[in-house]
């Protein structure tokens, strides 16, 4: 029985593998006040052209994609990104000072040392759930990158 099941999975794999997005190095900065938006960061890479269409987490009411753009005079503004397109084999990195996931309406403070689930929905790859570790308020990158 097991072998048959395995064979069935293997048969299905090529189609699954054709639309695979890897979500790596997720982390969020601990929040100081639950009333303020939080920020999370991660890296996405897809085998094929795909599109991130939705983000959801029980940690926040709403997750938005934001890009911080700093102009030549040093003025920073946040831009809202509606959809994020992934080009095959080109990683997209969210990092401080650039793109971030803005967690709006936190259901509680993001406490250092905890994790929270984040579900990303892709047009082709479907839903991917990752656990996001909460790092210190002064963290500037994922664990091990500093």
């Amino acid at each position, binding site marked *: 029985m097991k072998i048959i099941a395995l064979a069935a999975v293997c048969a299905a794999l090529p189609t699954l593998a054709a639309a695979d997005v890897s979500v790596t190095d997720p982390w969020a900065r601990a929040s100081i006040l639950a009333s303020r938006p939080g920020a999370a960061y991660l890296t996405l890479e897809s085998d094929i052209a795909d599109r991130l269409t939705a983000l959801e987490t029980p940690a926040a009411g709403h997750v938005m994609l934001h890009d911080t753009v700093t102009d030549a005079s040093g003025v920073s*503004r946040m831009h809202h990104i509606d959809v994020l397109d992934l080009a095959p084999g080109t990683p997209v990195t969210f990092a401080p000072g650039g793109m971030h996931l803005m967690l709006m309406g936190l259901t509680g403070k993001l406490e250092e040392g905890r994790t929270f689930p984040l579900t990303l929905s892709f047009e082709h790859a479907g839903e991917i759930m990752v656990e996001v570790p909460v790092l210190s308020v002064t963290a500037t990158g994922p664990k091990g990158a500093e």
Partner: protein
Amino acid sequence: MNQTSNGYGLSRIRRGLWALTGVAAVALGAAFLWQALTRPDLPAPRVTGEAAITNAYTLTDHTGQMLTADSFDGQWQLVFFGFTHCPDICPTTLAYMAQVMDKLGPGATQVTPIFITVDPARDTRDVMAAYVGAFHPRMVGLTGTEAQVAEAARNFRVWYERAEDTTAPDGYTMAHSGHIYLMAPDGRFFDVWMEGDAPAETFANNLSTLIQTTGSSS
């Protein structure tokens, strides 16, 4: 990292200052126009670029004390303008300032990191107290009335603006300059840079050297 040999990313700073001068020039032009149209008897504001960055304000700190820039006489000051609803640039920059403080070692007692809000309506004294305390025990949070904050920003040549955004909390966010200003113990402007210009360690080393060569003035 855009680092030059002296570690300060001077070319970037210079570019930033030219840009600031540009902004100042536009502001000056607008001020002249406004003045010409409304109050012709007022003296023209004097804006002379770098030298015009002045450490002057009257604000309330996170403990509720009314302070002026003179309150920090004798201390090197790291000054950053931001707001607590800012999820990315502001905590990143304040974390950087906290790292600089930690890497200064004993020299840290001669440096005060200062966070001035550009969103005083939401960043009350209590909010500032919770916020700065989370970054560094020596960090001072300053807030005030809209007019007091505007005056502080004007003196530092910091530009900020309320940007309406229906997707943001309370329907708005703030656009603002992300510079960190280094003010000398005599209160005068010394340097300006941004978080990405040099690693915290490089900046802390340079600041340590400055502290040692200028001696303790407090």
